[in-house]
Protein backbone atom coordinates (compact mmCIF):
# COMPACT_ATOMS: atom_id res chain seq x y z
CA UNK A 1 0.00 0.00 0.00
CA UNK A 2 1.36 3.40 -0.96
CA UNK A 3 1.82 5.99 1.82
CA UNK A 4 -1.27 7.97 2.78
CA UNK A 5 -0.51 11.55 1.67
CA UNK A 6 -2.68 12.98 4.41
CA UNK A 7 -0.54 16.01 5.17
CA UNK A 8 -0.60 17.17 1.57
CA UNK A 9 -4.34 17.69 1.75
CA UNK A 10 -5.80 21.17 2.01
CA UNK A 11 -6.88 22.09 5.51
CA UNK A 12 -10.62 21.60 4.97
CA UNK A 13 -10.50 17.86 4.17
CA UNK A 14 -7.76 17.36 6.74
CA UNK A 15 -9.92 19.01 9.38
CA UNK A 16 -12.84 16.77 8.42
CA UNK A 17 -10.63 13.68 8.73
CA UNK A 18 -9.30 14.75 12.13
CA UNK A 19 -12.83 15.38 13.37
CA UNK A 20 -13.70 11.77 12.57
CA UNK A 21 -11.24 10.55 15.19
CA UNK A 22 -11.80 9.98 18.85
CA UNK A 23 -9.76 11.74 21.50
CA UNK A 24 -7.19 8.95 21.69
CA UNK A 25 -6.62 8.95 17.93
CA UNK A 26 -6.40 12.74 17.91
CA UNK A 27 -3.75 12.58 20.64
CA UNK A 28 -1.76 9.91 18.80
CA UNK A 29 -1.88 11.98 15.60
CA UNK A 30 -0.77 15.07 17.56
CA UNK A 31 2.21 13.12 18.88
CA UNK A 32 3.45 12.32 15.37
CA UNK A 33 5.18 15.67 14.82
CA UNK A 34 5.06 19.37 15.58
CA UNK A 35 3.12 19.95 12.40
CA UNK A 36 0.45 17.38 13.17
CA UNK A 37 0.11 18.86 16.65
CA UNK A 38 -0.43 22.30 15.16
CA UNK A 39 -2.94 20.92 12.67
CA UNK A 40 -4.87 19.23 15.46
CA UNK A 41 -4.94 22.48 17.44
CA UNK A 42 -6.46 24.25 14.44
CA UNK A 43 -8.92 21.49 13.58
CA UNK A 44 -10.18 20.59 17.04
CA UNK A 45 -11.99 23.38 18.82
CA UNK A 46 -13.53 21.53 21.70
CA UNK A 47 -13.76 21.82 25.42
CA UNK A 48 -12.47 18.94 27.51
CA UNK A 49 -13.42 18.47 31.15
CA UNK A 50 -10.87 16.45 33.02
CA UNK A 51 -11.05 14.43 36.21
CA UNK A 52 -7.80 13.15 37.67
CA UNK A 53 -7.76 10.04 39.76
CA UNK A 54 -5.47 7.35 41.05
CA UNK A 55 -7.38 4.11 41.47
CA UNK A 56 -4.76 1.36 41.32
CA UNK A 57 -3.26 3.37 38.47
CA UNK A 58 -3.07 6.97 37.33
CA UNK A 59 -6.21 7.95 35.46
CA UNK A 60 -7.32 10.88 33.33
CA UNK A 61 -11.05 10.92 32.71
CA UNK A 62 -11.95 13.24 29.86
CA UNK A 63 -15.32 14.40 28.64
CA UNK A 64 -15.45 16.36 25.41
CA UNK A 65 -18.14 18.88 24.77
CA UNK A 66 -18.93 21.36 22.04
CA UNK A 67 -21.86 22.93 23.79
CA UNK A 68 -20.37 23.71 27.18
CA UNK A 69 -22.23 20.94 28.99
CA UNK A 70 -20.73 17.59 29.81
CA UNK A 71 -23.45 15.23 30.93
CA UNK A 72 -24.59 13.60 27.71
CA UNK A 73 -21.23 12.86 26.23
CA UNK A 74 -19.03 9.82 26.19
CA UNK A 75 -16.16 9.66 28.59
CA UNK A 76 -12.64 8.85 27.54
CA UNK A 77 -10.57 7.29 30.27
CA UNK A 78 -6.81 7.10 30.03
CA UNK A 79 -5.27 4.59 32.43
CA UNK A 80 -1.53 4.62 32.87
CA UNK A 81 -0.06 1.30 33.87
CA UNK A 82 3.37 -0.10 34.35
CA UNK A 83 4.74 -1.84 31.30
CA UNK A 84 4.94 -5.10 33.27
CA UNK A 85 1.12 -5.26 33.22
CA UNK A 86 0.89 -5.12 29.45
CA UNK A 87 0.37 -8.85 28.92
CA UNK A 88 -2.73 -9.20 31.07
CA UNK A 89 -4.53 -5.97 30.19
CA UNK A 90 -6.71 -5.04 27.25
CA UNK A 91 -5.45 -1.77 25.85
CA UNK A 92 -8.87 -0.62 24.65
CA UNK A 93 -12.33 -1.15 26.04
CA UNK A 94 -15.80 0.38 25.78
CA UNK A 95 -18.43 0.15 28.47
CA UNK A 96 -21.81 0.82 26.88
CA UNK A 97 -23.71 1.27 30.12
CA UNK A 98 -21.72 4.27 31.26
CA UNK A 99 -20.48 5.24 27.80
CA UNK A 100 -16.87 5.07 28.88
CA UNK A 101 -14.07 4.33 26.45
CA UNK A 102 -10.99 3.14 28.28
CA UNK A 103 -7.51 3.35 26.85
CA UNK A 104 -4.79 1.68 28.85
CA UNK A 105 -1.35 3.07 28.16
CA UNK A 106 1.82 1.39 29.34
CA UNK A 107 5.11 2.87 30.38
CA UNK A 108 8.10 2.18 32.56
CA UNK A 109 7.18 5.45 34.23
CA UNK A 110 3.37 5.68 34.46
CA UNK A 111 3.51 8.98 36.36
CA UNK A 112 5.56 10.59 33.60
CA UNK A 113 3.15 9.21 31.03
CA UNK A 114 0.26 10.59 33.09
CA UNK A 115 1.84 14.05 33.13
CA UNK A 116 2.76 14.01 29.44
CA UNK A 117 -0.74 12.91 28.45
CA UNK A 118 -2.18 15.67 30.61
CA UNK A 119 0.11 18.23 28.97
CA UNK A 120 -0.85 17.00 25.51
CA UNK A 121 -4.56 17.21 26.29
CA UNK A 122 -4.08 20.77 27.50
CA UNK A 123 -2.16 21.65 24.34
CA UNK A 124 -4.68 20.12 21.96
CA UNK A 125 -8.01 20.81 23.63
CA UNK A 126 -9.52 23.68 25.52
CA UNK A 127 -9.11 21.89 28.84
CA UNK A 128 -10.26 22.52 32.34
CA UNK A 129 -9.78 20.24 35.33
CA UNK A 130 -13.14 19.60 36.89
CA UNK A 131 -12.07 17.37 39.76
CA UNK A 132 -8.99 15.89 41.33
CA UNK A 133 -9.39 12.94 43.64
CA UNK A 134 -6.21 12.80 45.67
CA UNK A 135 -7.52 9.86 47.68
CA UNK A 136 -4.89 7.31 46.85
CA UNK A 137 -1.98 9.52 45.98
CA UNK A 138 1.27 9.61 47.87
CA UNK A 139 3.23 12.82 48.41
CA UNK A 140 6.01 11.79 46.08
CA UNK A 141 3.65 11.37 43.12
CA UNK A 142 1.55 14.41 44.00
CA UNK A 143 4.43 16.87 44.00
CA UNK A 144 5.24 16.80 40.22
CA UNK A 145 1.53 16.95 39.38
CA UNK A 146 0.99 20.00 41.61
CA UNK A 147 4.16 21.55 40.15
CA UNK A 148 2.71 21.08 36.66
CA UNK A 149 -0.63 22.55 37.76
CA UNK A 150 1.13 25.59 39.23
CA UNK A 151 3.09 26.12 36.03
CA UNK A 152 0.24 25.56 33.58
CA UNK A 153 -1.01 28.92 32.29
CA UNK A 154 -4.19 27.39 30.88
CA UNK A 155 -5.17 26.02 34.26
CA UNK A 156 -6.68 28.68 36.48
CA UNK A 157 -9.15 26.87 38.70
CA UNK A 158 -9.86 23.35 39.84
CA UNK A 159 -13.49 23.12 40.69
CA UNK A 160 -13.44 20.16 43.00
CA UNK A 161 -10.62 18.64 45.03
CA UNK A 162 -11.15 15.65 47.31
CA UNK A 163 -9.09 13.94 49.91
CA UNK A 164 -9.91 10.86 51.90
CA UNK A 165 -7.70 11.07 54.91
CA UNK A 166 -6.38 8.16 56.84
CA UNK A 167 -3.35 7.52 58.99
CA UNK A 168 -1.20 6.84 55.96
CA UNK A 169 -1.87 9.88 53.85
CA UNK A 170 -2.35 12.87 56.13
CA UNK A 171 0.75 14.41 54.61
CA UNK A 172 -0.87 14.66 51.19
CA UNK A 173 -3.39 17.25 52.35
CA UNK A 174 -0.61 19.22 54.03
CA UNK A 175 1.47 19.07 50.86
CA UNK A 176 -1.46 20.20 48.74
CA UNK A 177 -2.29 23.11 51.01
CA UNK A 178 1.33 24.19 51.14
CA UNK A 179 2.18 23.96 47.45
CA UNK A 180 -0.97 24.34 45.31
CA UNK A 181 -1.11 27.90 43.99
CA UNK A 182 -4.19 27.93 41.75
CA UNK A 183 -7.77 28.71 42.68
CA UNK A 184 -10.23 26.17 43.95
CA UNK A 185 -13.84 26.30 42.78
CA UNK A 186 -16.91 26.26 44.97
CA UNK A 187 -19.38 23.43 44.95
CA UNK A 188 -22.11 25.21 46.92
CA UNK A 189 -22.77 22.35 49.28
CA UNK A 190 -25.36 23.05 51.93
CA UNK A 191 -24.48 21.55 55.23
CA UNK A 192 -27.37 21.37 57.65
CA UNK A 193 -26.87 18.91 60.36
CA UNK A 194 -24.16 16.67 61.51
CA UNK A 195 -23.00 14.31 64.14
CA UNK A 196 -20.40 14.57 66.82
CA UNK A 197 -18.30 11.49 66.89
CA UNK A 198 -16.10 10.24 69.66
CA UNK A 199 -13.17 8.01 69.02
CA UNK A 200 -12.31 5.21 71.44
CA UNK A 201 -9.43 7.29 72.75
CA UNK A 202 -11.91 10.03 73.71
CA UNK A 203 -11.28 12.53 70.88
CA UNK A 204 -14.42 14.22 69.54
CA UNK A 205 -14.97 15.43 66.00
CA UNK A 206 -17.94 16.59 63.96
CA UNK A 207 -18.97 14.96 60.74
CA UNK A 208 -21.10 17.27 58.62
CA UNK A 209 -23.70 15.69 56.42
CA UNK A 210 -23.96 17.01 52.92
CA UNK A 211 -27.58 16.69 51.99
CA UNK A 212 -27.85 18.92 49.01
CA UNK A 213 -25.79 20.75 46.45
CA UNK A 214 -27.08 24.16 45.52
CA UNK A 215 -26.83 25.56 42.01
CA UNK A 216 -25.25 28.77 43.21
CA UNK A 217 -23.96 30.30 46.41
CA UNK A 218 -26.97 32.62 46.82
CA UNK A 219 -29.59 29.88 46.62
CA UNK A 220 -31.30 29.27 49.95
CA UNK A 221 -31.72 25.85 51.47
CA UNK A 222 -35.31 24.68 50.88
CA UNK A 223 -37.29 24.71 54.16
CA UNK A 224 -38.64 21.21 53.61
CA UNK A 225 -35.15 19.81 53.55
CA UNK A 226 -34.31 21.51 56.82
CA UNK A 227 -37.54 20.29 58.37
CA UNK A 228 -36.93 16.69 57.34
CA UNK A 229 -33.41 16.81 58.62
CA UNK A 230 -34.50 18.11 62.03
CA UNK A 231 -37.21 15.46 62.21
CA UNK A 232 -34.63 12.78 61.58
CA UNK A 233 -32.33 14.20 64.18
CA UNK A 234 -35.16 14.38 66.75
CA UNK A 235 -35.81 10.70 66.31
CA UNK A 236 -32.34 10.17 67.66
CA UNK A 237 -29.69 8.58 65.60
CA UNK A 238 -27.72 6.87 68.41
CA UNK A 239 -25.60 5.72 65.54
CA UNK A 240 -22.19 4.24 65.25
CA UNK A 241 -19.96 5.68 62.61
CA UNK A 242 -17.09 3.63 61.36
CA UNK A 243 -14.04 5.76 61.04
CA UNK A 244 -11.15 5.03 58.70
CA UNK A 245 -11.67 1.57 57.31
CA UNK A 246 -13.82 -1.30 58.41
CA UNK A 247 -10.75 -3.41 58.73
CA UNK A 248 -9.47 -1.29 61.55
CA UNK A 249 -12.78 -1.64 63.32
CA UNK A 250 -12.20 1.61 65.11
CA UNK A 251 -15.67 2.60 66.12
CA UNK A 252 -17.03 5.83 67.33
CA UNK A 253 -20.09 6.53 69.30
CA UNK A 254 -22.00 9.41 67.96
CA UNK A 255 -24.80 11.62 68.93
CA UNK A 256 -26.83 13.82 66.73
CA UNK A 257 -26.39 17.50 66.91
CA UNK A 258 -28.49 20.26 65.43
CA UNK A 259 -26.59 22.89 63.66
Amino acid sequence: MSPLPLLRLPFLPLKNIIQNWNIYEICEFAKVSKRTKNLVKLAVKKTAYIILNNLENFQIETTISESGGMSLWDTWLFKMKDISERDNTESEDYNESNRTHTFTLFSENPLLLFLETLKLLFEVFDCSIHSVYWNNWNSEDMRPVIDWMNGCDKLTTIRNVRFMLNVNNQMTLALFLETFQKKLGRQYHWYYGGVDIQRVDGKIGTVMWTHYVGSNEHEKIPKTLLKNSRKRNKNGLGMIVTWFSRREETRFKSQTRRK
Partner: protein
Amino acid sequence: MSCEEPTTSPTPENNITVVSSDGKEFLLDLKLTEQSETLARLISNFEYDRTDVKKDPVPLGNITSAQMQKIIEWLQHHRYYPKWEQNDIHYSTSFTFETWVEEYLNIPNNEMFELLNAANYLNIPRLFSTICRIMASRITGKSAEQIRTVLNIKTDVKNDVYTGIPIQEDSSSSEDGMSEISLSPSPPPI
Protein backbone atom coordinates in the same frame (compact mmCIF):
# COMPACT_ATOMS: atom_id res chain seq x y z
CA MET B 1 -29.39 2.47 1.02
CA SER B 2 -30.38 1.56 -2.48
CA CYS B 3 -32.11 3.71 -5.01
CA GLU B 4 -33.76 2.90 -8.25
CA GLU B 5 -31.68 4.14 -11.13
CA PRO B 6 -33.78 4.61 -14.25
CA THR B 7 -31.69 5.03 -17.32
CA THR B 8 -31.87 8.45 -18.86
CA SER B 9 -29.80 9.73 -21.70
CA PRO B 10 -28.73 13.37 -21.53
CA THR B 11 -30.23 15.64 -24.12
CA PRO B 12 -28.93 19.09 -25.03
CA GLU B 13 -31.72 20.63 -22.97
CA ASN B 14 -30.91 18.91 -19.73
CA ASN B 15 -27.16 18.65 -19.73
CA ILE B 16 -23.96 20.61 -19.73
CA THR B 17 -20.52 19.79 -21.06
CA VAL B 18 -17.53 19.82 -18.71
CA VAL B 19 -13.96 19.64 -19.94
CA SER B 20 -11.28 17.90 -17.87
CA SER B 21 -7.73 19.21 -17.50
CA ASP B 22 -6.53 16.86 -20.27
CA GLY B 23 -9.13 18.19 -22.68
CA LYS B 24 -11.70 15.40 -22.62
CA GLU B 25 -15.35 16.46 -22.76
CA PHE B 26 -18.06 14.90 -20.60
CA LEU B 27 -21.77 15.37 -21.07
CA LEU B 28 -23.35 15.81 -17.64
CA ASP B 29 -27.04 15.57 -16.85
CA LEU B 30 -28.16 18.66 -14.91
CA LYS B 31 -29.80 16.33 -12.38
CA LEU B 32 -26.36 14.91 -11.58
CA THR B 33 -24.78 18.31 -11.14
CA GLU B 34 -27.14 19.03 -8.24
CA GLN B 35 -24.83 16.91 -6.08
CA SER B 36 -21.95 19.27 -6.76
CA GLU B 37 -22.42 22.59 -5.04
CA THR B 38 -19.75 24.15 -7.26
CA LEU B 39 -21.44 23.06 -10.50
CA ALA B 40 -24.93 23.78 -9.16
CA ARG B 41 -23.91 27.34 -8.28
CA LEU B 42 -22.29 27.81 -11.66
CA ILE B 43 -25.37 26.53 -13.49
CA SER B 44 -27.56 28.79 -11.43
CA ASN B 45 -25.35 31.85 -12.01
CA PHE B 46 -25.21 31.33 -15.76
CA GLU B 47 -28.83 30.15 -15.97
CA TYR B 48 -27.76 26.97 -17.76
CA ASP B 49 -30.94 25.33 -16.52
CA ARG B 50 -32.86 27.42 -19.07
CA THR B 51 -33.33 25.86 -22.49
CA ASP B 52 -32.93 29.16 -24.32
CA VAL B 53 -29.46 29.89 -22.90
CA LYS B 54 -26.42 28.84 -24.89
CA LYS B 55 -24.28 26.53 -22.75
CA ASP B 56 -20.54 26.84 -23.18
CA PRO B 57 -18.37 23.91 -22.08
CA VAL B 58 -17.21 24.27 -18.46
CA PRO B 59 -13.46 23.77 -18.06
CA LEU B 60 -12.45 21.90 -14.91
CA GLY B 61 -8.72 22.64 -14.88
CA ASN B 62 -8.01 20.75 -11.65
CA ILE B 63 -9.68 17.50 -12.59
CA THR B 64 -8.30 14.86 -14.96
CA SER B 65 -10.49 12.75 -17.22
CA ALA B 66 -9.86 9.66 -15.04
CA GLN B 67 -11.01 11.53 -11.96
CA MET B 68 -14.02 12.95 -13.82
CA GLN B 69 -15.00 9.46 -14.94
CA LYS B 70 -14.81 8.27 -11.34
CA ILE B 71 -16.84 11.22 -10.11
CA ILE B 72 -19.55 10.70 -12.71
CA GLU B 73 -19.78 7.08 -11.56
CA TRP B 74 -20.40 8.37 -8.02
CA LEU B 75 -22.95 10.95 -9.17
CA GLN B 76 -24.82 8.35 -11.21
CA HIS B 77 -25.01 5.94 -8.29
CA HIS B 78 -26.33 8.64 -5.94
CA ARG B 79 -28.59 10.27 -8.49
CA TYR B 80 -31.82 9.56 -6.60
CA TYR B 81 -30.44 9.76 -3.10
CA PRO B 82 -31.91 12.41 -0.80
CA LYS B 83 -29.95 15.59 -0.37
CA TRP B 84 -26.86 15.03 1.73
CA GLU B 85 -27.05 16.19 5.31
CA GLN B 86 -24.01 16.21 7.48
CA ASN B 87 -24.52 14.04 10.53
CA ASP B 88 -22.59 14.43 13.73
CA ILE B 89 -19.45 12.68 12.63
CA HIS B 90 -17.42 13.57 15.64
CA TYR B 91 -15.97 10.79 17.74
CA SER B 92 -17.65 8.03 15.80
CA THR B 93 -15.94 4.78 16.62
CA SER B 94 -17.16 2.76 13.66
CA PHE B 95 -16.53 3.30 10.01
CA THR B 96 -19.00 1.27 8.02
CA PHE B 97 -19.95 1.85 4.42
CA GLU B 98 -22.27 0.18 1.99
CA THR B 99 -20.73 -2.48 -0.22
CA TRP B 100 -20.89 -0.35 -3.34
CA VAL B 101 -18.93 2.43 -1.61
CA GLU B 102 -16.35 -0.06 -0.28
CA GLU B 103 -15.78 -1.32 -3.82
CA TYR B 104 -15.86 2.15 -5.36
CA LEU B 105 -13.18 3.39 -2.97
CA ASN B 106 -11.05 0.28 -3.09
CA ILE B 107 -8.35 2.28 -4.85
CA PRO B 108 -4.72 3.17 -4.07
CA ASN B 109 -4.09 5.93 -1.53
CA ASN B 110 -2.74 8.36 -4.10
CA GLU B 111 -5.86 7.97 -6.28
CA MET B 112 -8.08 8.46 -3.27
CA PHE B 113 -6.10 11.58 -2.39
CA GLU B 114 -6.71 13.00 -5.88
CA LEU B 115 -10.38 12.03 -5.73
CA LEU B 116 -10.75 13.78 -2.38
CA ASN B 117 -9.20 16.92 -3.80
CA ALA B 118 -11.60 16.73 -6.74
CA ALA B 119 -14.58 16.19 -4.42
CA ASN B 120 -13.39 19.17 -2.39
CA TYR B 121 -13.03 21.32 -5.51
CA LEU B 122 -16.41 20.35 -6.93
CA ASN B 123 -17.92 20.47 -3.45
CA ILE B 124 -19.67 17.10 -3.51
CA PRO B 125 -20.37 16.73 0.22
CA ARG B 126 -21.41 13.08 0.27
CA LEU B 127 -18.30 11.96 -1.63
CA PHE B 128 -16.08 14.37 0.31
CA SER B 129 -17.33 13.17 3.66
CA THR B 130 -17.17 9.50 2.67
CA ILE B 131 -13.55 9.72 1.52
CA CYS B 132 -12.63 11.65 4.67
CA ARG B 133 -14.13 8.90 6.78
CA ILE B 134 -12.36 6.20 4.78
CA MET B 135 -9.05 8.05 5.17
CA ALA B 136 -9.73 8.57 8.88
CA SER B 137 -10.39 4.84 9.25
CA ARG B 138 -6.88 4.10 7.99
CA ILE B 139 -5.45 5.85 11.05
CA THR B 140 -7.87 4.60 13.69
CA GLY B 141 -6.41 2.40 16.37
CA LYS B 142 -2.84 3.20 15.38
CA SER B 143 -0.11 4.49 17.65
CA ALA B 144 1.88 7.61 16.81
CA GLU B 145 4.71 5.44 15.54
CA GLN B 146 2.37 3.41 13.32
CA ILE B 147 0.85 6.62 11.98
CA ARG B 148 4.34 7.82 11.05
CA THR B 149 4.75 4.63 9.03
CA VAL B 150 1.39 5.09 7.29
CA LEU B 151 2.19 8.71 6.49
CA ASN B 152 5.79 7.91 5.56
CA ILE B 153 7.34 10.54 7.80
CA LYS B 154 11.06 10.06 8.19
CA THR B 155 13.11 12.86 9.68
CA ASP B 156 13.84 12.63 13.40
CA VAL B 157 13.50 15.60 15.68
CA LYS B 158 13.56 14.32 19.22
CA ASN B 159 12.69 11.27 21.24
CA ASP B 160 9.17 10.50 22.23
CA VAL B 161 8.87 10.98 25.98
CA TYR B 162 6.69 7.92 26.33
CA THR B 163 8.50 5.35 24.32
CA GLY B 164 11.94 6.73 23.58
CA ILE B 165 11.10 6.29 19.91
CA PRO B 166 12.17 9.26 17.80
CA ILE B 167 9.48 11.78 16.98
CA GLN B 168 9.89 12.61 13.35
CA GLU B 169 9.55 15.91 11.62
CA ASP B 170 7.14 15.72 8.75
CA SER B 171 9.50 16.40 5.90
CA SER B 172 9.11 13.25 3.86
CA SER B 173 8.33 13.17 0.20
CA SER B 174 4.69 12.50 0.97
CA GLU B 175 4.40 15.86 2.66
CA ASP B 176 6.22 18.08 0.24
CA GLY B 177 4.00 21.08 -0.16
CA MET B 178 0.29 21.43 0.15
CA SER B 179 -2.07 20.64 -2.65
CA GLU B 180 -2.44 23.36 -5.20
CA ILE B 181 -6.20 23.04 -5.17
CA SER B 182 -7.76 25.94 -3.36
CA LEU B 183 -9.47 25.60 0.01
CA SER B 184 -12.66 27.28 -1.02
CA PRO B 185 -14.05 25.92 -4.22
CA SER B 186 -15.20 28.60 -6.59
CA PRO B 187 -16.86 28.23 -9.94
CA PRO B 188 -14.28 27.51 -12.60
CA PRO B 189 -13.70 30.23 -15.20
CA ILE B 190 -15.80 30.05 -18.30
